[in-house]
């Protein structure tokens, strides 16, 4: 990407393996572009302050808080949102383990669990705690969320 000299720019974003071309403002966060310009409302606005993780998406296999990222920074990356996950083990586990109540935090939690499983099939307890601590569930369903993640981990073959 070359220097953008404009504060209004046309950008192509790779989201869930589809290319989206949109005109955005340089100051638009990825969260606002996903929701307001592309109609991908799975990433939720919570605190808008980087604290809650409701807006989590996966960028180049890493979890990122989309309220803390300018959309322009996501140019030339692979973005995965909850709309890009279809019937994955972690989604099934959330249903089976009753890992949500109101569901507001759920897309963010599913994506951080999915990102963890992408890079590590058998994370340590410390790693699980470290990663899950990035997100907040106001319904406090933490135990069920952790159970869901562990049930997927336990179903994976040891390497």
């Amino acid at each position, binding site marked *: *990407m*070359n*220097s*953008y*000299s*404009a*504060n*209004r*720019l046309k950008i192509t974003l790779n989201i869930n393996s589809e290319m989206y071309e949109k005109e955005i*403002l*340089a*100051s*638009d*966060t990825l*969260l*606002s572009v996903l929701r307001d310009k592309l109609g991908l409302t799975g990433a939720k606005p919570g605190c*808008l*302050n*980087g604290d809650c*993780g409701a807006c*989590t998406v996966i960028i180049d296999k*890493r*979890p*990122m*808080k989309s*309220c*803390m*990222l*300018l959309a*322009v*920074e996501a140019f030339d990356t692979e973005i995965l949102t909850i709309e890009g996950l279809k019937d994955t083990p972690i989604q099934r586990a959330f249903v089976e383990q009753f890992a949500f109540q109101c569901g507001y935090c759920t897309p963010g939690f599913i994506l*951080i669990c999915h990102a963890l499983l992408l890079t590590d099939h058998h994370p340590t307890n410390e790693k699980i*705690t*470290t*990663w899950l*601590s*990035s*997100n907040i569930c106001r319904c406090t369903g933490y135990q069920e969320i952790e159970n869901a993640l562990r049930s997927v981990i336990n179903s994976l073959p040891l390497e």
Partner: protein
Amino acid sequence: MLSYNFDYYQPKSIDEAVGLYQTLKAEEKKPIYYSGGTEIITLGRLNLVKTGAVIDLKGIPECMEYTLHNHQLIIGSALSLNTFEENRLFPLLTLTSKEIADYTSRNKITLGGNICGQIFYREAVLPFLLTDSYVTIAGPNGIRKAAINEIFYCTLQLEEGEFLVQIATEEKFLMAPHLSVKKRKQWDTGYPLITVAALKKDEEIRFAFSGLCPYPFRSKQIETILNNQDLSYKDRISTSFQYLPKPILNDTEGSSGYRMFVLETTLTNIFSVLGGEEK
């Protein structure tokens, strides 16, 4: 979501970044250098930071460097904090930075952003203060190198138009015995109260602090007292308190009295682990 718009630039070289800053300043755009950007976005949303142009440093190769070269570890300022969790060449930096914010945020927060930010804590600077590291700074007058202990006083003392490019740490410090203790208001993930980082070199323990005062610091005077083998640990700690900078933070995370209590117990723990001689 920010309430105002700005121009976005991603220069590919140090010279381009410095030149852009000068041009944008002349155009009265009030440019700011942008690295992780979390503080700019957070404060921008509240209209506490206003700029007409951001200059993203992540496209500059020197700011993304992470190499051990000529017995020095060179660390680029635009590397995310999780880089140090994945590449553990400097264990004290790994230990200190993995306590900053949360895992996902550390994919975005950068070393330079944390050190040059406005928040009190800025813990990422502590390992570099303890290891007498050197900073490389770029600006309108070219590139300069400086000892971090001479240039970090409350904040990194940058002139207008300058930015932090890299930090260099001598290899001999990387594996020295160390400890970094972060105490929080509540639980393992609550808001930070204080962090004390310590490193043992040549039989002396070095100490650096965050969350005690409105800025991180290392004090040679305090270190001399804490290493005075004529005194007991208890006396070293109580004597050193006379030389703490002021003010001691007194806020909703903890009163100044509580912070001092936590500091005392933390220093006692550090002595028990890194063990200077006790009379």
